[in-house]
């Protein structure tokens, strides 16, 4: 009798405690379930980590909607109200309201440690080596390095790796980095975060060097600022996220470093919301 009423009281207390400590809000995020180092459905990517940091700051729990980041991603996710936040968009993205950039990265050359060291698109060695580039294939567009090589007449020794790949395999865009390790190609030109993360995981680890020039000709940037995005009319969340990104910029920098993301942090004034 006594013990059972105690149990009741304890249970009542537990309920109260749980209710009191449970975060009242949910941060709804759309993300790719299969694309490390950015994100995966086990929440192992650096975007997952950064989002968790922001959620904690806002006193919210994260709930994910998983959707492959391909054509129609924003239309089917954020803009279809499946979520309120998307991480990892180019700061020049037009369909959403972007936060100030929280990091910047660069296309990089990936080579074997015993292989050629390439730092510039104008290196004459690029005319001889087997080069891998990432293929987009949408809207007749391709990655800036692929265009930059074509502009220089370097096409015969270029091999393409589609960003789509085989979605049954883990992290489809990573194949190009593995191809360097396996000697299929001599050098790959890859977007920094993918390159840095997977280069460090090859045996032996591969060398990663930012692509120069930083902007090739008037229109081909090799560096991109990266932001988070909310719907254009969601100003309240925009302010909260922008504020949290600024408050946690040091921790965010540490996460990016831990994932081997090459590149400089954004300019300090840009990070101020």
């Amino acid at each position, binding site marked *: 009798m006594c013990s059972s009423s105690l149990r009741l009281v304890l249970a009542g207390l537990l309920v109260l405690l749980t209710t009191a400590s449970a975060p009242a809000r949910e941060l709804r995020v759309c993300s790719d379930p299969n694309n490390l180092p950015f994100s995966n459905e086990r929440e192992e990517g650096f975007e997952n980590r950064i989002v968790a940091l922001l959620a904690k700051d806002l006193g919210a729990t994260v709930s994910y909607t998983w959707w*492959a980041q391909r054509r129609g*991603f924003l239309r089917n996710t954020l803009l279809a109200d499946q979520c309120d936040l998307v991480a990892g968009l180019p700061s020049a993205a*037009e369909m959403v309201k972007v936060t100030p950039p929280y990091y910047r990265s660069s296309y990089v050359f990936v080579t074997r440690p015993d292989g050629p060291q390439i730092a510039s698109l104008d290196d004459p060695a690029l005319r001889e080596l087997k080069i891998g580039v990432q293929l*987009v*294939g949408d809207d007749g567009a391709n990655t800036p390095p692929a265009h930059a090589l074509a502009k220089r007449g370097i096409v015969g020794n270029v091999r*393409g790796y589609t960003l789509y790949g085989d979605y049954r395999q883990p992290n489809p865009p990573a194949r190009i980095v593995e191809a360097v390790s396996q000697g299929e190609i001599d050098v790959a030109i890859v977007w920094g975060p993918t390159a840095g993360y997977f280069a460090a995981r090859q045996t032996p680890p591969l060398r990663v060097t930012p692509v120069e020039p930083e902007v090739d000709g008037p*229109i081909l940037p090799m560096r991109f600022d990266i932001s988070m995005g909310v719907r254009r009319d969601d100003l309240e969340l925009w302010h909260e996220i922008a504020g949290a990104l600024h408050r946690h910029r040091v921790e965010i920098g540490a996460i990016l470093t831990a994932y081997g993301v090459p590149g400089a942090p954004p300019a300090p004034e840009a990070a101020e919301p």
Partner: protein
Amino acid sequence: MPFRLELLAVAIVLGTASPAAAQGGPTMPVPPASAAPPDDGQWTAPAKNHANTRYSELDEIDTGNVARLTVAFTFSTGVNRGQESAPLVVGGTLYLVTPYPNILYALDLTKPGAPMKWRYEPKPAAAAQGVACCDVVNRGPAYAGGRIFYTTLDGHVVAVDATTGGEVWKVRVGDINTGETLTMAPLVARDKVYVGNSGGEYGVRGWIQALSAEDGSTVWKAYNTGPDKDVLIGPEFKPFYAMDQGVDLGVTTWPPDAWQQGGGNVWGWLAFDPDLNLLYHGTGNPGPWNAELRPGDNKWTAGIFARDADSGAARWFYQFSPHDLYDWDGINENILLDLTWQGQPRKVLIRPDRNGHVYVLDRTTGEVLSAEPFHHLTATSGVDLKSGRLNYVPEKAPQMNRVVRDICPTAPGAKDWNPSSFSHQTGLLYIPHNNLCMDWQVESVSYIAGTPYVGAEVRMYPGPGGHRGALTAWDIVAAKKVWEIPEKFPVWSGAITTAGGLVFYGTMDGWFKAVDARAGKVLWQFKTDSGIIGQPTTYRGPDGHQYVAILSGVGGWAGAVVAGDLDVRDGTAAKGFVNAMRDLPDATTKGGTLYVFKLP
């Protein structure tokens, strides 16, 4: 069933027994009788016959009475996406396939209101969310030997018992996880089912294969890029032009290895000539490489193959758009006709191509007899009949460092997949098509799989005249336009013709129209509940009367702004098509309804 099979058998015997009838008169082109046997009142394949004429000999509905056409019954498909399919009629049953999830419905035409007999659901895999590309359309089933054959978005081909709706076989020929999908209508000829894949933009290498109609097993498979052995090019291959002659051109006309992700997919219309035993199929655009990254002709993309129907061995090839710059797939309809050309009888193949020309090809050799424009052209300046080459205008080539204005036609071409019809009665070709031009520049920043890049910004707009589409009647021998009906929106539906002197087609704002085939005058029109991008068919019902059927439901590339809920403010969406379609959401909403019409 036995009754229907008998009919079919009779038709085949008649066809093969009278090849001489195929030669035709001195002026009027006619389809070869073996590929277009006498009409039995059914409509058993989207193209009506293996010659792809889409002509019915039914004449109960004619120019004199069509104004009284009225709705016989309707049926909701339950899927509000782009309906590009053709309703088939075999005996007393109407069959239709929906877009993804690709449900096959059988409707009982012997009962009032045509109630559902059964439905077959292949339950195609959704793959991972977002992995399947935007195109969820299906271009129709085909009937033969008591079975309905069709493709599913997730890479399967199915055979369904036409009587019971039971699955006879289902085979996987493509993998949606690599971007490979199936959207085309199969062609069934003799004991084989011919299908090909879509997905060039994802770097999928194009192929066509012949499956056994009996059990779905692969009889042969030919790739459209790569070494000759993969393409089934051997000693029998005799292309007409020097540009298509040589060893392993599917490798040597690309930078090393680029052919492995070269596109050249097969998602359009096939034709079959029983006398020559040749299968004709187009090939899609080269992808996913930009033009500048793939110097060379990029064989065997954006062209047409003639293959031995039994072995797949290539017999000839012609490339409509060598080194394609504009996404001009070469997969449009191929219409087989016999005609007198400069005094000589010729077996020809007519191709109204995406690049804006109506081609007249000798279908035994691949020689181009004529290639004249049916659309305003600025990007090219004609086809050299000596070399067979399309002449590109260099100033209109997309380039990274400048804005290129007034490119005509655009990426979807002068016309896309939506098929023309040839009237056996008037001898004219009726072409549903676009009237669009575009500006091109490198500008917008985009991203895929976490990777940012600079994208091409394309904006399409109406061509000369201000309308965006048209139905054009075309004289094949004279190679000129006879009449044209301008339409506000691109005409994305197919056309059919009948012995009643009529052409039927639909518009993206939902009008289904009957036109006087000689005069080009609209005699009747009916407003359906959504835009039309489907293929009309006509048949003789169990009551002995003629009916006309069409699926309404806007979508496809041109209609993505409605079916895909795209943002009208983003003019570059759907590869720039949205810019030309901003007012479509004001003209129509999504739908998915079968309409069947008859005389009162």
